[in-house]
């Protein structure tokens, strides 16, 4: 691993790895034994499905429960699981090989700083934390869901559905073995809450989970200090605010024409807001039937997305948080960007808005291209593209009728949405081509 990795940047390794998985699993899916009709399936569709799975998006052009055999479904599930936690486990290997190979102690210090993650020695431990927490959380989720569904269906089917949807919720993929996605859970409290919690746990990021677990252990034992890191605070705060605003807006705009009970409407609004914010993509109501302002709110939520180092997509909550903090600093006329009594380096802000801008541009271009080739309406296409970019998987129902060209475009967008932000995050490490000269400064007027 380290020998292969030596010549390549982490980003190159990631992209290649993901692309290989997509290719292999797409070939497996295309085989007759994956299809219930026992024929070869169109390759573009298989690429779309596996790209959707590896990026934990959840946009589908096939009915997983009906079109795929158990083998096909399991391939999808494994790809989703790899997509959800794969690169996080991958990370220690990549960073480890970098460190072992060529980094001095001082660079390790820098790396530790810039990654805000434990040092390499902790990396393996961190990978173990990822795997263990994933298994524990998914098992609990699966157990609750299976217990709930066992009342209405045979036990083996209930367990299978529980495992499948628990993994899909935690990995924020949002694919379902049912053709109506999650519409059947309606306003039932148990599955709604279980899925919301699984989604939030998946979307908040492993580092935050790890941080909380470690600090609460310290707190229980009475060891000081036991504050969580600034990163965790920011991720939790922004997630809370964004989900809160999203829920309230969806609730307010849907309230006038909701046929559900008051509690049911609140639960559904929360479910849809969390589903969009954590980029899961389950829907318990028909998205296309929602009002325009609610759909617009969902688009914004999907673009923002989950927290970094998680199974979710989007530009990430902390990116938004850093930009807002930057804005605040500017408004208050402060030189330093501060939050929670900590200073945020300028570089982080630079990455944050570069990432947002790059994401915005990519989405706009894809939207423009799809508007050219698809007969669907403006809002349907915007929704679809942002859903693909944010690795969400919500759709206003046009995925199945898209042309092959659009499917490839969306596949690329899902791929970019998964790896682009990461690549920019990674670019903070190991800057080797720094020029030996700097140009003189000259002012440019903006605004």
């Amino acid at each position, binding site marked *: 691993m380290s020998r292969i990795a030596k010549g390549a940047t982490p980003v190159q390794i990631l992209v290649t790895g993901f692309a290989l998985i997509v290719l292999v699993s797409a070939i497996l899916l295309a085989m007759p034994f994956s299809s219930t009709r026992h024929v070869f399936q169109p390759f573009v569709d298989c690429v779309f499905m596996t790209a959707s799975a590896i990026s934990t998006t959840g946009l589908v052009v096939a009915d997983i429960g009906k079109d795929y055999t158990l083998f096909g479904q399991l391939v999808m599930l494994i790809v989703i699981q790899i997509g959800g936690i794969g690169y996080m486990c991958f990370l220690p290997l990549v960073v480890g090989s970098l460190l072992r190979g060529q980094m001095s102690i001082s660079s390790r210090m820098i790396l530790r*700083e810039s*990654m*805000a993650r434990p040092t390499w020695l902790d990396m393996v431990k961190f990978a173990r934390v990822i795997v263990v927490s994933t298994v524990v959380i998914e098992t609990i989720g699966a157990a609750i869901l299976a217990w709930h569904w066992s009342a209405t269906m045979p036990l083996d089917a209930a367990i299978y559905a529980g495992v499948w949807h628990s993994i899909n919720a935690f990995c924020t993929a949002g694919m379902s073995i049912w053709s109506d996605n999650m519409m059947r859970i309606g306003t039932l409290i148990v599955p709604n809450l279980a899925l919301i919690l699984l989604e939030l746990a998946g979307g908040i*990021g492993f580092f935050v989970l790890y941080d909380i677990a470690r600090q609460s252990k310290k707190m229980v034992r009475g060891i000081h200090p036991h504050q969580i*890191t600034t*990163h965790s605070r920011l991720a939790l705060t922004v997630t809370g605010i964004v989900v809160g605003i999203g829920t309230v807006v969806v609730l307010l705009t849907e309230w006038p024409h909701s046929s559900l009970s008051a509690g049911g409407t609140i639960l559904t609004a929360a479910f849809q807001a969390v589903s969009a914010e954590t980029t899961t993509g389950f829907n318990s109501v028909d998205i296309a039937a929602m009002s325009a*302002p609610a759909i*617009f*709110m969902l688009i914004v939520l999907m673009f923002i997305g989950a927290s*970094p180092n998680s199974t979710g997509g989007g*530009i990430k909550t*902390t990116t938004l948080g*850093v930009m807002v903090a*930057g*804005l605040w600093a*500017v408004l*208050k*006329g*402060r*030189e*330093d960007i*501060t939050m*929670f009594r*900590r*200073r945020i*380096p*300028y570089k*982080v*802000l*630079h*990455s944050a*808005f570069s*990432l947002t*801008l*790059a994401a915005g541009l990519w989405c*706009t271009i894809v*939207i*423009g*291209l799809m*508007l*050219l080739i698809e007969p669907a309406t*403006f*809002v349907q296409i915007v929704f679809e593209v942002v859903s693909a970019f944010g690795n969400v998987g919500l759709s206003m129902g046009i995925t199945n009728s898209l042309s092959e060209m659009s499917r490839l475009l969306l596949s690329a967008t899902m791929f970019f949405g998964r790896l*682009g932000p990461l*690549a*920019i*995050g990674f*670019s903070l490490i190991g800057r*080797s*081509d*720094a020029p030996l000269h*700097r*140009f*003189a400064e*000259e*002012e*440019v*007027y*903006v*605004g």
Partner: protein
Amino acid sequence: MPFRRANVLHPDSPPTSTLPAWMETMMTTLTGLLVAYFLTYHGLLIHLPLQLGVVARWLDGFLVVLLAVEILPLYRNRRIWRQSWYQNWFDTVLLAAALAANLLHGWGGVFVFLRQVVHHGRHEALGRFVDALARRPIALLAASFAALAVAGTGLLLLPAATTDGQGLSLVNAFFTAASAACVTGLTVIDIGSVLTQFGQTVVLVLFQLGGIGIMTFYAGLASALGVRLTIAQRKSLTMTVEQPRGFELAHTLRYVLILTIIAELTGTALLYPRMAEKFATTDEALFASAFHAISAFCNAGFGLFADNLVGFQADWLVNLTIIGLIVLGGIGFSVAHEIITRRSLRRSPRATWRGITTHSRLALTATGILILIATLAFFLFEHFNALAGLPIGTKVLASVFQAVTPRTAGFNTVSLASLQPVTIICWVLLMFIGASPGGTGGGIKTTTAAVLLLSVRSQFRGRDDVEYGGRTIPKVTVFRAAAVLVLSALALLIAFGTLLMTEKQPFADLLFETASAFGTVGLSTGITPLLTAAGKLVLTVLMYVGRIGPLTFVLAMRARERTSPVAYPTAQIMVG
């Protein structure tokens, strides 16, 4: 000579008025009365005794003569007439205007009034303006545009403003006045048929003042910062150390006004032959030419025709004139100042290009690229749609025109009602970016977008410095650009979300309308008159924010930059 020129601005320089103080006061009072009379008579359509009209006519003449008596003696010493001109050019220009207005219509008093308002110690007043700008930039900027909009609303409510003699409704008057003051050009009424010439003149004055106003603020900003425009300019002015603060601003404003007047006069002259074909009388044709020329230079986009400029689709003269005015108005006076000088006319374009500042080079490059890409995009996307059936030459001309107009002008020579969705999204982006700083245009500005893109490029290349053309762009500038973008995007999204709730229009049309209002463009797919009152108010606020927002923001940042007494320890945040 240069020594004297600098010296006249010294506190003990000769007085700028030859009249005693009591006569000044009398002049101010009389002009005030006269303006009140004009408003009552022309605005409210109240029938006053005929004798009063004769008195007003004589009073008008008297005031113009008084102004001439006051100003002309300043030129009596022919050896220093250049110096006198330098010091009194503004009064002199107003005197000429007052004389012309008196002879033509008998309302030269308006110009005398204007002169009295800005008279008392121009450099001192400008110095105070700069000081106030440095102290309370947001309040000053916000208040001036709000005052302009409110005054305009009052005038448009007058019965004389509309052809039906009723005056506009409050919401429509407010929307139109705000749209004009913010040089947007969105209208809920047909300016050409609903408004009388009085109403049209109100709109014209509003966008003219709005356009010059915004340039003044940019100039004031430069002055408040002590930023010199160019080294060449500094040399030509032979700056002394104890220069009064308003001096440089006075110089810049002189350039701004002269550029405005020359550009608008040229535009009027070029448009006149075509307008003469459309209007019966010379007077109307002249007014229409001036209206469109000023509207184009101020990037307002108000037109007198119901179909905007679609009727002139294939007319190269009109198209090129308007395009030229839009680009000149939108490029920013500092850029214009560097490329349109006597020196640059003698030099080769290449030498000029090498001699100008990085800012100008960036603004010109960005504008050029935007126009080029937009032209190609419009031509390709609309070839079989909005441009269908036109000869190829007209297609190219219309594409160029439609590509230039999102520099926040808002004229259109092609009907925008049935654009392709992909064109709409491109135009939303173009309108959001807008024109260059220091001009009459709106949006987040070409240089802001360029700095941000350069910054993304440097991020992907793993560089810390944002570089352009062999220069590093200061970090704080990149920071400002990012702040402008984030705030603008927030304003746009919130307004769009609100409109989605209040309106029943299609998603794409509303997005187009919102971006058009924010960028103070004025292009519309035709839904503006169909908006609800709430929607109109949202758009009015957005136009206002779009006009003053980005600049306020930069001003606020400049004025309040300070180091915090506390420095917290650094924390790392993962993004992406």
